[in-house]
């Protein structure tokens, strides 16, 4: 009986082993030299073709979408080094170590990707090779971003994460799980350095401004008689003061097309001096007749750039009782004002680029480290580019005032962006494809402000983005990892007894309505 059983089971086991081996065994590699490249273009997903990439970026894993039974990829550099990958699946995962060697040894040169696809008849077909360029300019190795589901009114789970761009490692800095699901917004650093950090929390017990300055943790209430709590920040290069906008934002919804939109009903700029714990402002940056927002310091700290538009009542039509806001006519100009960090005195305002001139609403200026260019968002209207499909990344030459839209934009919204510490790379959020989920994209920028083709942040699983429903928010490039003691941070956030109450500079004599700003329902277009 036992022998009979063995006689039946043994062949079954052997067949199973054979089947397993045939399914998982290595794919034979074609001889590239014997195959003539076809005119067929490889369809790579994500699109990592014809790009300039940093020499320190993680492997650009991809999926070959050309149909086939098996796949072969050979990556070679002009200056040597070779990677060969064969796979039965279209997902191509490049080994990290070999990739590093390849990029390091081919800085400033091209790398070539030869791809072959095996047809059903067992014949290998060679696709047109892909050539990418390896830049000599490294990208800052850390990207900090907020990750959350596309947000409307409600929020629940969100987290601040840092990703090592040289590997696939992502670590959690903080999630709002630990702070009773409070919402946290802008995070900012001093010139791509991770030592000093600021975050803005809202709602609940932890609401306030959190500042980490080295080992020092502070919770600050920036609300004064002049203003309600601060919103969009920009750290001065000296790390001792922060320019903030004070906004009164409202969301409304469309019946068709893009669903949501945000409008700023009132805004002003203030400066918070961390050492003096003082809020100050000037009539030129907080004028009652204008809405000033999105501050950005120049790298030398001697100018403050920001965006400005007329007060909203200038955009209303209809009767006095029922003023209808022409929200789609609201456009912002790019403004600059001189600043003396030693004395705190302000210079004269000047319009760098007016919306009338370019026909666009200019928002979120970010100044290149050499002070030569401003990267901005340009949309047909509004102040919230991440919700506006027409929003593109624009480049402004700050010396000549010449502006253009680099060839990095898509039909969907391109929004939050920033420079690397060297100024040779930019990161920006793009909703290309889905229209609803922002992904961080990188592009090389040369000294003339010319950009390379952008590429999405690589993931270990090349199909990662195809089923990932969260959006990446406010990507910031850093030269080193953030050393954040989450426990200390949470303790500080909950410690309302030691909250630092900002004072108002006695020199500020003018007033606006922002200290008691209401929801502004009367001006919203519904």
């Amino acid at each position, binding site marked *: 009986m036992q022998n009979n059983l063995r006689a039946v089971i043994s062949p079954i086991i052997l067949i199973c082993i054979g089947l397993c081996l045939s399914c998982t065994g290595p794919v034979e590699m074609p001889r590239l030299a014997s195959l003539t490249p076809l005119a067929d273009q490889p369809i790579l997903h994500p699109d990592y073709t014809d790009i300039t990439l940093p020499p320190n970026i993680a492997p650009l894993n991809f999926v070959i979408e050309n149909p086939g039974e098996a796949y072969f990829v050979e990556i070679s550099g002009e200056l040597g080094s070779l990677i060969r990958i064969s796979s039965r699946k279209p997902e191509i995962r490049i080994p990290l170590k070999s990739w590093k060697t390849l990029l390091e040894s081919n800085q400033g040169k091209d790398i070539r990707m030869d791809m072959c696809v095996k047809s059903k008849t067992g014949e290998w077909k060679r696709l047109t090779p892909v050539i990418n360029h390896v830049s000599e300019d490294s990208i800052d190795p850390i990207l900090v971003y907020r990750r959350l589901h596309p947000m409307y009114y409600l929020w629940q789970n969100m987290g601040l994460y840092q990703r090592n761009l040289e590997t696939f490692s992502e670590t959690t800095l903080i999630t709002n799980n630990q702070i009773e699901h409070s919402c946290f917004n802008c995070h900012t650093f001093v010139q791509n350095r991770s030592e000093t950090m600021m975050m803005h929390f809202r709602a609940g017990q932890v609401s306030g401004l959190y500042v980490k300055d080295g080992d020092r943790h502070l919770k600050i209430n920036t609300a004064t008689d002049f203003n309600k709590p601060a919103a969009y920040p920009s750290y001065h290069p000296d790390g001792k003061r922060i320019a903030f906008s004070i906004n009164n934002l409202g969301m409304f919804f469309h*019946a*068709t097309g893009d669903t949501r939109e945000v409008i700023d009903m009132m805004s002003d700029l203030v400066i918070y001096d961390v050492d003096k714990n003082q809020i100050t402002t000037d009539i030129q940056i907080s004028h009652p007749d204008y809405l000033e927002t999105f501050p950005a310091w120049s790298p030398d700290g001697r100018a403050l750039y920001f965006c400005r538009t007329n007060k909203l009542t200038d955009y209303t039509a209809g009767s006095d009782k029922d003023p209808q806001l022409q929200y789609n006519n609201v456009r912002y100009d790019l403004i600059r004002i001189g600043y003396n960090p030693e004395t705190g005195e302000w210079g004269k305002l000047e319009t760098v680029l007016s919306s009338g001139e370019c026909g666009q609403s200019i928002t979120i200026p970010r100044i290149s480290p050499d002070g030569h260019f401003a990267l901005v968002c340009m949309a047909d209207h509004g102040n919230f580019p991440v919700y506006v499909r027409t929003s593109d990344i624009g480049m402004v030459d700050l010396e000549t005032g010449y502006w253009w839209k680099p060839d990095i934009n898509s039909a969907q919204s391109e929004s939050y962006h920033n420079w690397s510490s060297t100024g040779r790379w930019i990161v920006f959020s793009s909703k290309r*494809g889905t*229209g609803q989920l922002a992904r961080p994209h990188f592009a090389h920028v040369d000294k003339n402000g010319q950009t390379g083709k952008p590429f999405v942040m690589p993931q270990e699983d090349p199909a990662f983005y*195809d089923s990932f429903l969260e959006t990446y928010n406010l990507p910031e490039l850093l030269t080193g990892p953030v050393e954040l003691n989450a426990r200390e941070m949470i303790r500080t956030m909950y410690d309302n007894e030691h909250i630092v109450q900002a004072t108002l500079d006695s020199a500020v004599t003018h007033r606006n309505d922002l200290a008691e700003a209401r929801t502004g329902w009367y001006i919203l277009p519904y």
Partner: protein
Amino acid sequence: MNHRNRDRGLLTTAFLLFLFFYTRFAIQPEIIYQAQEPVFFKTARFFVDFLGIPGGLTAYTAACLSQFYILPWIGAAVITLIIGGIVSLTHLWLNRLQPERTDVWLHLIPGLFLLMLHSHYHHPLSMTLGLLLAMAGLVLYTSIPIKNVGLRFLFYAILCGLLFYLSIGAMLIFAVLGALFEWTKNRSVKGALLGLIFLCFAGTLPWIATMLTMITPKQAYLTHFWIASRYPVGWAPAGLYITLIFLAFIPFWLPLFRKLSSIIGDRIKRIPILKKTGWICRIILISLLTWAAAHYSLSRDSRTLYQAVHHTREKNWDTVLEVISGNPMNHILIQHLSARALHHSGRLLDDLFSYPHAWGKQGLLLSYQFNYSAPKHMCDFCMDIGHLNEAEHWTYETLTLGGETPWILHKLAEINLLKGETDMARICINKLRQTLLHQALADDCEQLARNLAAGRTGAYPFPIRTDFIINKHKLEEDLQALRELMPQNRMVFEFNIASLLFDKDLEGLYNQIGRLPEFGIRTLPRHWQEAMILRMLKPDGSKLDLAGYKLNSSLIQNLQNFQQALLLKADKRVEAYNELAPAYGNTYWYYLIFEEVAGNAK
């Protein structure tokens, strides 16, 4: 097998069989699924996310097993098996505590409490799984033949650490019962001190974890152990844990208990019929007790609510109305769902006031406040009525609150396909493909994509071509705008008319009669007729042109009867409200007269 084992086996089997059928038919696992909508994906990434946090593995397993609630028989089996495991482990533990003989039913007590807890539709399976793990640890710990105190402590500490990682706060159950075991085993001051030391160690473990990992003290102590939820049987978790502690002292009180039960037993044995069928009576008694506990703890209102939601999603409109008729509770959602079901059954304007309507227009269209606490219903309604952008808005609010549930992924995919955002829809479909049991929803979306590509929109209303700004505070204004933009949309039309009925806008109702033929409606709906009869009582009423529609003479007679009945109760409003309800409660006139009284009832 001796008598005791046989009795215990029969009793346990009877209990578990009752539990299984009660869960299947009374609680209904598919309704638990509806209430909880657990999120689970069969991908490595989803699993890895749970690995890094204490209690993650229990949460992961619970999320996985909760998926089976959608299959009622398997769902009931899952709950029964887990509770069965706890009951068996309790029996083993009691045997370790009192090796000689324990009573045949004591081990069922935790099962009884768990049955009560699972009668609450939001009770998380992770808590039950946590208890299962704690009891398994306890049985393991009480079984080791190690006598050396140091080694025992080491074993206890390792188990505490392991259980904390596996099931976080539920470790405390093991910690307390394990420490008590040290005391009850030695029955000395030394034993008590030893237990106390053990307990102190276990008590500090979650605190240490808060230093080392990113969890808060509340999470460290309470996750999978206690939930701050509005339990109808809020005391049941406490009752369960106190009972377990009480059972841990069994060596102290069992002798007394035995003495008592032998006295009662002797008396029972004197009754001839009970002498031979004593164990059957015991089974019946335990079953009755179980049924009583289950019956008491089952929230019928919750069941009605989730059943109505469940059948609405399944588009079983007649069943929705049947469920609501069985328990016509005054809940805003119940009113809303009944209105939708009535519309789809072609009876909205005939029977609107036959179903709960105390919430008035808010119940019809859902209120702003309600939507932000439970946005998924607004999302479903907007989708139903063809208001795609608002459906998208509320779908995202639901996604934020409830996570990536299969239903919300399906809705998002549908909306995006209809809006032409195929890349976004593809992401949702891919995500649906990663679920355990919802491949059919993904197939459904694929089919819709094929249909749309072929130009077939099917049951989906035409999209709105002209934009307007949504007034989130006044939904009826949006409804009016929709009426202008989607004149062929019957649901918009009917909800508008229902809204006018609630507004008591007789003039508005009269003005809309001319539109009835557009929808092929040949008879003026009953409530509309009731409103028009009232309109005719106004000074210019006789000149009304009802566009060829006729008023039912029996309705006119009915109104006269109602008026006479009202006159008799002229000064007793509340009394009239109650007395006239059986005969006239389903008429528009009754609503008009008693709206305020009915409103107070909500």
